[in-house]
């Protein structure tokens, strides 16, 4: 009899404590190019996502201001990360996404840098009902498919195209003649998407698109592209290139002694720390886009940058920043969902409403529309002056004066 009561008490106690043991870790899968031509950017993105998870898991109590720090909604649970290398290859991206979903049993995915890989990988996630948060791929087609499980935090190709045109118009008002524009773009989803939106925006805003030069990103030589540009003499050149090709372009521009008056680089290669390290001294004045700024000393962005620098040896840049921001958005949704179930996380993502003060990037907020795109994303333009990029446009966000024309190596 005593034994039966004892067993009964223990059973009841277990039933109650079963409810209290709600601390469940949530597994998130990260897909990035950790080898291959974009590996340096991929490794930075991985470090950024890891740092975000450390912050959210409560490892750095003095970093306040980011949503979901401490993960109260998970009642003691933490976020666990597991990464896969897609090597820049869309079909590898798909098989790795499948592996993360089926074998590693992740509740959500984040990635994947190259638009072509993100486009392919999100198809797999959609089929298996796993939410995928896109931090940095900008090709328009990623959120144009009626998918319910793809959420993109970053601004997209068409946003940037109109930003560049507004920038060029402002430069015109400063007295620098700007009539003709040339675009040089790598030919996967990323480059062609941006080039398409640029074509539209350039025409709409009254500029003259005198040359469009597509090329393969892993090319070994770019002298013919530069010679074509030298022939046409555009007032502004917009490069849409990854890291290795950007390095080649800057070197070839110097070697063939050609300085376009305005050089705009569409993030990617121009934001990779390898760019400044390897060709920074010959690319003075290159304009880039970024929603990341280190901010004043003591601000939360400065603290995050310090932690990132201690971890990797590099400052944060727009690409690592956007991925980190996406991870914070995902963590916030996981926190509100309070569960590791993909459906709950998806529902929470759909209800995301973050204000600019809760963000580390210069967006106007985070709110997803029915296609999964953040409608409040924004960017500003930065310029390479000396060894750093400084914000030069729009005027109200500028921390330094714009230097036109492109200096190159002076």
């Amino acid at each position, binding site marked *: 009899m005593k034994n039966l009561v004892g067993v009964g008490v223990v059973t009841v106690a277990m039933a109650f404590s079963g409810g209290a043991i709600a601390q469940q870790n949530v597994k998130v899968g990260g897909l990035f190019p*950790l*080898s*291959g*031509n974009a*590996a*340096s950017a*991929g*490794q930075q993105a991985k470090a950024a996502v890891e740092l975000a998870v450390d912050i959210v898991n409560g490892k750095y109590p003095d970093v306040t201001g980011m949503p979901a720090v401490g993960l109260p909604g998970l009642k003691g649970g933490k976020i666990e990360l597991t990464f896969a290398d897609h090597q820049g290859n869309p079909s590898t991206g798909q098989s790795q996404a499948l592996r993360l979903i089926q074998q590693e049993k992740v509740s959500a995915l984040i990635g994947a840098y190259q638009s072509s890989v993100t486009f392919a990988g999100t198809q797999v996630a959609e089929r298996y009902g796993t939410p995928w948060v896109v931090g940095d791929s900008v090709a328009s087609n990623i959120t144009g498919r009626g998918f319910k499980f793809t959420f993109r935090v970053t601004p997209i190709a068409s946003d940037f195209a109109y930003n560049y045109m507004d920038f060029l118009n402002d430069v015109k008002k400063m007295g620098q003649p700007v009539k003709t524009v040339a675009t040089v773009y790598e*030919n996967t989803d990323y480059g062609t998407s941006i080039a398409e939106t640029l074509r539209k925006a350039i025409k709409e805003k009254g500029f003259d698109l005198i040359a469009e*030069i*597509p*090329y*393969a990103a*892993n*090319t*070994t*030589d*770019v*002298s*013919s*592209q530069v*010679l*074509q540009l*030298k*022939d046409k003499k555009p007032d502004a050149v917009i490069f849409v290139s990854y*890291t*290795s090709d950007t*390095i*080649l372009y800057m*070197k070839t521009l*110097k*070697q*063939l*002694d050609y300085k376009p008056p305005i050089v705009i680089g569409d993030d990617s290669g121009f934001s990779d720390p*390898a760019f400044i*390290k*390897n*060709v920074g*001294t*010959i690319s003075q004045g290159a304009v880039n886009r970024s929603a990341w700024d280190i901010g004043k000393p003591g601000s939360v962005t400065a603290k995050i940058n310090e932690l990132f620098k201690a971890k990797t040896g590099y400052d944060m840049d727009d690409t690592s920043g956007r991925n980190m921001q996406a991870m914070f958005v995902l963590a916030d949704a996981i926190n509100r969902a309070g569960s590791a179930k993909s459906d709950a996380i998806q529902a929470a993502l759909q209800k995301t409403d973050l204000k600019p003060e809760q963000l580390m990037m210069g967006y106007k907020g985070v709110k997803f529309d029915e296609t999964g795109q953040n409608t409040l994303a924004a960017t500003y333009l930065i310029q390479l002056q000396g060894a750093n990029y400084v914000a030069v446009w729009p005027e109200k966000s500028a921390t330094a004066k714009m230097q036109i024309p492109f200096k190159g190596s002076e």
Partner: protein
Amino acid sequence: MTIIQVIASGLLLGAVYALFSSGLTLIWGMMNFINFAHGEFVLIGMYIAFLVVTYLNGGPLLFVGTAAVLLFGFGIVIYYGLIRHVMRGPILAQILSTFGLALLLRYLAFFIFKADFKTLPDTIFPGTVNIGGIFLGMPQLVAGGVALVITLGIHLLLKRTTIGSQLLAVSEDRQAAMLMGIRPDRMQAIAWGLSAASAGVAGALIATFYYISPTVGESLALTAFVVVAFGGFGSVPGALVAGLLIGVIQSLSAYLLGPIYKDIVVYAMFVALLWIRPTGLFGKAA
């Protein structure tokens, strides 16, 4: 005017292709063996140049010389350690062994040097030579010049020296060579050493104007194969001519048709040539 610049740039580019292809054609012609790790040998040369410049503050003679010597030794080690054994096996084993070696070297590079892109400082071969409006980058000029010298050197070595005739003897008829007192193993090891050394020199020179990253071997190797097949297996002067030709054709088609099409033109010509003349431009008949 620009067309002349395009052709000049194409010739320089082609000389670089010839530079790293000469080693490959030597092995291919001599031993009927395809070294899929050739691109990675070039890569090792690039990293040696990087290390010598960064840590020893060495000049071009030092880093090119070091690359040549170290890779010569490496080639011999690879021969005795891997190739000699694999040559006794089926063709598939031969192909896969150097392919595996390529992957091993590439990912060792990733592990040791990380994925970051590295470049050599601009000051090694500074400036651009301006001949009447045609710009020729100094690093590319040096690489082109060295390509010519190396091609000539290997060609003379093969045709005019004793060791050269011994190498050729082994490739023609191994048994007969043995009867003449030539040790085939030693000759083939030397051939590997030479091939690796020229790849190393190519890498060290290319590093002065290209970027260094573990995946560079892949893209360079593909071009090397095309150049070697085009020029004819085993013909070192053939590799030079083919390299120059491909460089010019690539540049012209990129400029006139668009950079996207340059590879189509080159590979279409390649297929056409092999159809008409399977042994390549200067290859010896099978």
